[in-house]
């Protein structure tokens, strides 16, 4: 039975195959194969094996390797066989090497020479075999070795050779487009080949080329259309017919190409209408291949410039697909529908029932395709039904890949179209509950942010309702036995931030729940870390509200456990909690301001707030700081370390613990002046912060850090938070370190400006709405009320969106005044700093007078100045706070750090103001000084009632 057609095989091989086929278990099969490998190893290396035998051995090797066993010992023999003169042996050799070797294998170099020789052979069969091997084995480096011969073969008398040569060139193009870029004209030439087979083959590379660069091939539209017309009119030889369809594969390729060329090009599309319409009419929808062409026509019609008649034909074809009994056709119909609704959304309506049938179908593939369609046609009116369906399906399947995909789609739709907060929270809960470990951690962070920021609509009550409903549902869900880690993190965070916010639940109740979580998931350190930080927040809010805090006994024991934890992160959190509890209400309130997670943190990497301290030390005789690069003898080491640091990720064992402080010193300490003896003590406090922020859970630490770093912020009117430290700028301006500060100022203003712009852009995007919404709106006409929803804004606003939101209000304000554009300021922003707004108003007027002095100042500067005054009026409290704990600042790490977080703003803010003013007026020095003077006076105008002394210090 085996030897028909002359492909010889010995009885031995037949026996092998048979015995493998009859093997009862995988183990038995392996045993047989391994003994076969032993036999082959022995025989193959025998010196005088006849070629015929050798050929069979190689085939057996291929077979063995297909079964999953290593046959690499025979590779070299396969390579040797390609050198053989007889075609029979050569063919087998080539077959084996194309299956065995990849293009970068070491042995390839031994074959290239043979291929070169074979490409020149007189026997076209040899050339064909060599071309097969070329397609598989030639890599980027060896392309030049065979390229000239391949190009020559494009004109070979045999069409089979021409065809394969084109394929080889196409393959080269795929591997390295630049290697054949000068030969692209050959493809165009071959399109006019006498042989339709060669022409058909040329369409493959042209399809790729056109996909990459449509515009260079617009001139071919007419040619393609005329080819397609000829094919459809059966001008090709009968042999190209397949199931009574003329050259269907060529038609499909051509339709795909036309779809690319006609996309968004009315003129080109108009050339295609007739031929596509013809095909719609002629296509035989009873055969599989006929339907394949019909489907391709629909794709083409939905891609090119729309034509009502064709759209009608396409809709007809789709309804035929959907009504068919064949699952394949239904699948194609659903897919085609998904394409067509982009152009004519109304056709979805007539197929509602068919779509729902497909959704209920036992065929998984069809179901998924239908979900894809639903996802495409979701709008605010149907989002609830669709997402509920999706979640049900998500729960029912086991395929993690698809579960993840569907979960992220649910989240996306929910964020975009959620009809109510209640529904949104419930939907997210379901997604997290059932696919929590699969969804991207970013989704969780997004949810936290959303709860923290609210939807940015209406008033604050909606936001607080959202929060309370979230808290309520989470408390309920905590009853479930096993929850995904990511979900628990969200729960802990929300309970910590808002658990006691509405006064419905007592602190002891919430803390009890948090302790339960930490105990129940005791092997999940991330969750425990979240829980501890949440506990700390709850206690902090209690203390700040002036209530007595009595820790629950289980909380006590938990803390004891964490204080001795192996995880430094947990330890640190526990110690921090202890420390916070010991503080008085005023301090706690500034460390842990409630509902301030969206506030901004600015970090001054230059540590310029230490300048005074350094100055003092130097005056006392300390050595000034010498930058590492200037220290003799240290250079090499530091270079070495830098290298180390880069490589650290790839090596297992590194002494990172020693490196980190070094890095931070470099980064944070200004080269200006710091005694080298102080090198050690200063980085010490910085280091834990560094590691703290980078370890394990970025969100927790950054969040915790944010609440902590923010500590001086709370008294400030939040909207203008950045301008807070205005006064200190003027000090630095007046001190001798002008240049240094000048630099930092420029930086600060730049970042601030660019960020402002960035957020403005992102807002603009929100208003225009992302692609999906646009689609939905244009398709279904229904105004999606989500346009302004912050959730979508986040999606468009890239990584650091955590910060962005808090910027958004500011930027929108600034922008509003700058362009007097009707950008509406989200209402919830206003209540951030209501008290100060009032105090700002009066102080604005005197400043306006100053503006008069300053020549035509634009509205920007007024806006900025406006903000600065606001900041000034309020800043004293902060500084007051800062000075209230002066002792702490010298002893405790955290206090230094708080200073760190504090004064950076100083510079940034000051920088922003001055720079912006300078930019707008572009004035000479004289005006600058005038401005400065004005600013200083302005501060004098609004002296702080709480702490005038501070100002005295600052202003000299």
């Amino acid at each position, binding site marked *: 039975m*085996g030897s*028909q*057609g*002359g*492909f*010889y*095989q010995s009885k031995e091989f037949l026996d092998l*195959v048979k015995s493998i*086929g009859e093997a009862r278990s995988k183990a038995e099969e392996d045993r047989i194969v391994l003994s076969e490998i032993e036999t082959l190893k022995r025989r193959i290396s025998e010196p*005088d094996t*006849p*070629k*015929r035998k050798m050929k069979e051995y190689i*085939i057996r090797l*291929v077979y063995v*390797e297909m*079964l*999953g*066993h*290593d046959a690499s010992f025979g590779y070299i023999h396969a390579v040797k066989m390609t050198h053989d003169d*007889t*075609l*029979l042996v050569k*063919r*087998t050799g080539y*077959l084996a090497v194309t*299956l065995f070797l*990849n*293009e970068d294998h070491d042995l390839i170099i031994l074959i290239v020479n043979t291929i070169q020789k074979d490409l020149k052979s007189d026997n076209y*069969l040899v050339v064909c075999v060599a071309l*097969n091997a070329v*397609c*598989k084995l030639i890599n980027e480096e060896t392309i030049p070795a065979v390229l000239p011969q391949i190009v020559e073969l494009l004109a070979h008398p045999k069409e089979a050779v021409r*065809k394969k040569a084109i*394929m080889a060139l196409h*393959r080269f193009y*795929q591997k390295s487009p630049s290697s054949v870029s000068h030969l692209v004209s050959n493809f165009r030439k071959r399109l006019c080949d006498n042989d339709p*087979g060669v022409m058909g083959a040329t369409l493959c590379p042209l399809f790729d080329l056109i996909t990459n660069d449509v515009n260079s091939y617009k001139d071919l539209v007419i040619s393609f259309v005329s080819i397609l017309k000829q094919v459809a009119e059966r001008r090709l030889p009968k*042999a*190209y017919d*397949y199931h009574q369809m003329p050259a*269907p*594969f060529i038609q499909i390729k051509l339709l*795909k190409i036309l779809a690319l060329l006609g996309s968004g090009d009315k003129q080109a599309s108009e050339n295609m209408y007739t031929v596509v319409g013809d095909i719609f009419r002629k296509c035989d929808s009873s055969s*599989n291949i006929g*339907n*394949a062409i019909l*489907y391709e026509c629909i794709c083409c019609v939905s891609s090119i410039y729309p034509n009502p008649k064709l759209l009608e034909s396409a809709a007809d074809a789709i309804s035929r697909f959907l009504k068919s009994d*064949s*699952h*394949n056709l239904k*699948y*194609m119909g659903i897919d085609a529908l998904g394409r067509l609704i982009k152009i004519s959304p109304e056709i979805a309506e007539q197929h509602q029932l068919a779509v729902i049938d497909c959704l209920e179908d036992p065929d*998984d*593939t*069809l179901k998924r*395709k239908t979900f894809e369609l639903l996802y495409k046609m979701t709008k605010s009116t149907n989002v609830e039904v669709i997402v509920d369906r999706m979640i049900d399906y998500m729960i029912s399947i086991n*395929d*993690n890949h*698809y579960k993840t995909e569907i979960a992220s789609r649910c989240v996306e739709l929910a964020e975009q179209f959620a009809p109510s907060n209640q529904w949104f929270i419930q939907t997210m809960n379901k997604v997290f509950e059932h696919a929590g470990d699969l969804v991207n951690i970013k989704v969780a962070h997004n949810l936290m942010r959303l709860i923290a920021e609210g939807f940015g609509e209406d008033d604050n009550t909606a936001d607080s309702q959202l929060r309370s409903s979230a808290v309520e549902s989470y408390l309920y869900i905590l009853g479930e036995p096993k929850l995904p880690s990511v979900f628990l993190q969200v729960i802990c965070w929300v309970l910590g931030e808002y658990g006691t916010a509405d006064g419905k639940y007592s602190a002891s109740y919430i803390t009890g729940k948090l302790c339960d979580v930490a105990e129940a998931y005791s092997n999940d350190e991330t969750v425990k870390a979240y829980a501890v930080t949440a506990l700390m927040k709850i206690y902090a809010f209690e203390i700040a509200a002036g209530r007595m805090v009595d820790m629950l006994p289980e909380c006590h024991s938990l803390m004891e456990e964490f204080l001795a934890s192996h995880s430094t992160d947990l330890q640190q959190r526990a110690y921090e909690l202890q420390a916070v509890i010991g503080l008085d209400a005023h301090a706690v309130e500034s460390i842990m301001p409630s509902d301030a997670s969206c506030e901004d943190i600015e970090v001054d990497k230059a540590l310029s707030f230490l300048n005074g301290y350094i100055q003092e030390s130097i005056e006392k005789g300390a050595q000034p700081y010498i930058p590492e690069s200037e220290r003799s003898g240290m250079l090499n080491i530091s270079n070495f370390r830098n290298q180390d640091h880069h490589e650290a990720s790839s090596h297992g064992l590194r002494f990172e613990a020693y490196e980190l402080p070094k890095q931070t010193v470099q980064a944070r300490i200004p080269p200006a002046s710091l005694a080298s003896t102080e090198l050690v003590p200063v980085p010490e406090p910085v280091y834990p912060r560094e590691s703290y922020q980078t370890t394990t859970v970025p969100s927790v630490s950054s969040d915790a850090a944010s609440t902590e770093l923010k500590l001086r912020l709370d008294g400030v009117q939040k909207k203008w938070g950045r301008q807070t430290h205005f006064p200190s700028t003027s000090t630095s301006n007046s001190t001798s370190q002008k240049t240094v500060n000048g630099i930092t100022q420029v930086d600060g203003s730049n970042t601030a400006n660019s960020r402002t712009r960035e957020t403005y852009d992102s807002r603009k995007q929100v208003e225009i709405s992302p692609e999906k919404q646009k689609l939905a709106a244009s398709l279904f006409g229904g105004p999606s009320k989500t346009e302004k929803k912050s959730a979508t804004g986040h999606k468009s606003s890239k990584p650091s969106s955590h910060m962005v939101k808090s910027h958004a209000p500011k930027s929108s304000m600034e922008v509003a005044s700058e362009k007097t554009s009707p950008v509406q300021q989200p209402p919830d922003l206003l209540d951030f700093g209501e008290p100060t707004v009032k105090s700002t108003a009066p102080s604005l007027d005197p400043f306006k007078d100053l503006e008069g002095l300053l020549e035509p100042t634009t509205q920007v500067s007024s806006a900025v100045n406006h903000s600065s005054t606001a900041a000034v009026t309020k800043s004293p409290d902060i500084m007051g706070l800062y000075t209230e704990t002066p002792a702490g600042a010298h002893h405790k790490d955290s206090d230094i750090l708080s200073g760190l977080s504090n004064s950076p703003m100083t510079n940034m803010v000051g920088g922003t103001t001055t720079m912006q003013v300078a930019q707008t007026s572009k004035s000479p020095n004289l005006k600058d000084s005038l401005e400065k003077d004005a600013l200083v006076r302005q501060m004098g105008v609004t002296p702080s009632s709480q702490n005038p002394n501070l100002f005295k210090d600052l202003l000299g």
Partner: protein
Amino acid sequence: MIKAVMVMNTQGKPRLAKFFDFLPVEKQQELMRRVFGVLCSRPENVSNFIEAESIFGPDSRLVYNHFATLYFVVVFDSSENELAMLDLIQLLVQQTLERCFKNVCELDIVFNYSKIHTILDEIILGGQVLETRSTEIMRAVEEISKLEAATNAISFIPKSASSWLSR
């Protein structure tokens, strides 16, 4: 572009595997196992398409057809048409293998391993459909077969002669 053609029997034993982008053997095995896992869980009378992104990565589709004891599987990307790929399997099995072997069965494929590869090489080259005329495919295969038969006959004599000489 077509990424792979696989043939496996209903017990999941691979009968033929051709990957048009190189993959290490272990990876091929794993892919085939996973494909089989999906195939054998498919109910009767459903579509011949499977979303294969979880197995083969983004932008990959899979079409299979079931003949007697064998699954024929084609994996490809969005530049091909599902229905057309289904017909490609049809073309391979019913119009080519059927003609070659008359009542083709699993054993024919196992025993004529290299011949099937030759046929596939005629139909698909470098991941693109090259030839769909079954007559043309048959002619090419016959030509090679004849040649091989001829060289086979010749090679016996020089072989034995050379072995005579070497003695």
